[in-house]
Every structure is written in C-alpha cells, then in structure tokens.
C-alpha cells in the first residue's frame, strides 16, 4: 500500500464516510458495495480537497471517480499533477 492510498483511507475514516473501517479494504474494493452512498461522496470529496489542497472539477464529480481507493488515487494524482504544472 502506498502513501496516497493510506491518506485516502484516513479521509474515509475521518469523515465516517463508510460503515466499515477503510484500513480493512483493498485498493480495488468497490466502495459502493461496502456502503458508500451518493450523499457520503460529497463529504468524501470535501475531505479529499481539504487534505490534498486540490479542487475536484465538475467533470470528476461522477460515481466512478469514487468507486474504489484506486479510482480516488487516480483522480487525486491527476489533480496534484495539474497543480504542480500550474
């Protein structure tokens, strides 16, 4: 497990986003199948924006973006890379 995915687990646990402990999940696990709701994805996104100091553009505000820790990592990596380039 890399550092980014660990930080994402922290955000998942801090916000009480999931009914389960995120450290017990694999990076590829389907978060919706373990109880992520569409309402909770908003708080998850806010938590990610705060922790990584990024902004999720509207085009990333889709169900698939938050479907797994892998998917979230990909989105955050993309946003961090854009930030660096700017």
């Amino acid at each position, binding site marked *: 497990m890399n550092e980014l995915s660990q930080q994402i687990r922290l955000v998942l646990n801090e916000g009480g986003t999931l009914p389960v402990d995120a450290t017990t999940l694999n990076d590829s696990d389907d978060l919706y199948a373990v109880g992520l709701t569409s309402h909770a994805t908003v708080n998850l996104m806010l938590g990610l924006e705060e922790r990584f100091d990024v902004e999720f553009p509207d085009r990333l*505000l889709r169900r698939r973006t938050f479907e797994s820790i892998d998917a979230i990592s990909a989105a955050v990596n993309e946003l961090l890379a854009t930030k660096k380039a700017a």
Partner: protein
Amino acid sequence: MTSTLARARCVGSEVAARYAESVDRDARFPHEAFGALKEAKLLGVMVPRAHGGDGASIADIVAICHALGQHCASTAMIYAMHQIQVACVVRHGEASAWHRGLMERLVGEQLLLASATTEAGVGGDVRSSVCAVERDCARFTLQKNASVISYGADADGILATARRAPDAPASDQSIVVVLKGDYTLDRTSGWDTMGMRGTCSEGFVLRASGDVAQILPASYADISAQTMLPTTHLTWAGVWLGIASDAVARARAFIRAEARRKPGTTPSGAVRLAETVNLLQLMRANIVAATRDYQRAMDSAETLTALAFAVAMNNIKTGSSEMATRVINHALLVCGLAGYRSDGPYSVTRHLRDAHSAAVMINNDRILANTAGLLLALKDEPEIFA
C-alpha cells in the same frame, strides 16, 4: 395506427375525464381509464420495436402524462408511475432473457407495473433498504414492509427494491421484478387523502418469491441515477403541467365568457390571467428543456451519474411542483367563486387538491436538502446553451 399521443388524448377526453369525479370522490382505482389505455395499447409503448413496442421516447411519455393530466390526475399519475417501471426494465433489462421476455409481455398483455421502493424503517430514503433478497440456488425470496405501493392491489406486477443480499449494506440495493402469482400483499394502511385519491397508494407487506433471473442485472444505484430518478421527475412534472394547463384553460374560458357578457370592457381578472399564462409558459419551458437534456444525455452513463445532472433533475421536481400549485392558485383567483366551487365548468378545486401532492411525493424539503449537499461539491455554472 394513430400516434401514441393522439390515442392518449382520446382516452383522456373520452374516458378519463368522464370518470375523474367518481375516481376522486370514491378514492378508487380508475378502472375505466386503464381499460381504455390497455385497449389503446398505451401501456407498453416505451418497449423497443425489436420487442414489439413503439419505442416511445421519454418526450412521448411526458407528452402522454401531460395529455392525461388535463382530465384525470390520478390516471395520469398511475400512468407515469407505471412508465417509470417500464423504463427501468427497458433500459436495464436488455442483457437478461427474462426481462426481454417481460418486455414482450408488457406489449402483448398490457401489464400494469407498480413500484415498492419506500419501506417502513428507512425514514423515506428510497436509496436504502432494510429488507434483502435472499437467494437459495436459482430461487429468491423477499419480504418487504412497503409503506406505499401505489395501486398495488390493481397492478399486474411490482418492481421492488431490496438490499442485494442479507449481508449487503443498506445502500447496496437491487431491483426485483415480481409478477402476479409470485407475491402476496397484506394491506397495512389505507389511502384517504386530500388529492390524487385514485392512485390508491396504500401500504402493504409484500411477500414474494421467484427465479433469480427476475432480479434486474444492474445495481439500483445505477438504475436510480440513470433512469428511475430522471424518468420520475420528468413524467411527474408532465402530470403536474397537465393539471395546471387544465386549470388555466378553465380560467381562460371564464375570462372569455366574462368578456362576451360585457363587450368593450376588459374583465377584472384578465390581467391576473395574463400573469398566469406567463407562469404556465415558464413551467412548460423548464420541463421541455429538461426532457431534451435527458434525451441528449441518455446514452452517456457518465453524464447521467454526474452530480450536475442530479441537481438539474432535482430542480425539475421541486420547481415544477411549486409552480403547479402557484399557477392553479392564480387560476382560482381569476375564476373567483366559480373556481372555488367544487362543481361547474370553472371549478379548479380538484386541480388544487391533486397538485398539492406534488410537494410531498418525495418531499421537496428532502430533495432540496439533497441538492444543498450536492452544491457543496459542484463548482461551475453550466453554459447557457451547454
């Protein structure tokens, strides 16, 4: 065969209108209108041509809801709720042989489908379930304490939401389709309400069993975002627009009659009528635009599951429901006591009672709270012609 809309207009004016008063007074299922809708083959129109239907679009269905809503709101609302179920089967059942077979039966037998989404114990949140689908090899069983199954007693089948499995979280839901013979219903509550009295939205305990092939292959989360939610808000809005349109038609007839009685003078309610027609136009334009947006986005799961689309559909629901009662209130003022009467050609009392259901069928406050949450995440204003 004449167009689906022409057939619906005919059923509306010839049959639904004639029985609307008795359906409302007795809070009974509109048997006559549904007999006529089945005879006119209007229940399966959304089924693709490949499976024997007319391949009707969402715009066609909204137009039919609007046409029926001008005559009998309960008939129109039941028709809308049925088509929401058909849309789920048509858009998410194509990969399954059982559901393709169901599509053919929807056309051939003109089956009427109801929905069991709300459940006691979840506080009105249709996106979470207490009950679960229990599989045993090729069979499943399901027991659901459904706080509302509109026209459940008169339907030929029911789409029920439930947790995907007994160990699945509340938000991980599936939809199962059960047909008459697969289930029993025990009534737990009646339906004696202000309006929409013919929808007979009673509570039931649903006990069902069937083949696991009857479970829709997609997850409810996808079905809800891509089909059930937009189809619900658009078809309901079509019904409400129909109710409001008829109230305005009555107000216009009232003012014309006044003008004829005193030629040369403008009736006192004429200015109010002008404002009413303006509001109705806003309501119609909003619904037409959103229907086109949905039609354009229909093949893109990405767009349909985006938060911006959910906000737009939420707004159609809250905006149209509020506008409906506002327009009808204006029509009431235009018609005065003739509008306030429960009888006569200018009465808008049933319109007003029926339209008040709009704000509480999925409570507007719940939807606004949901929108408020989504707006915490969304940033950009879409472009005007995006």
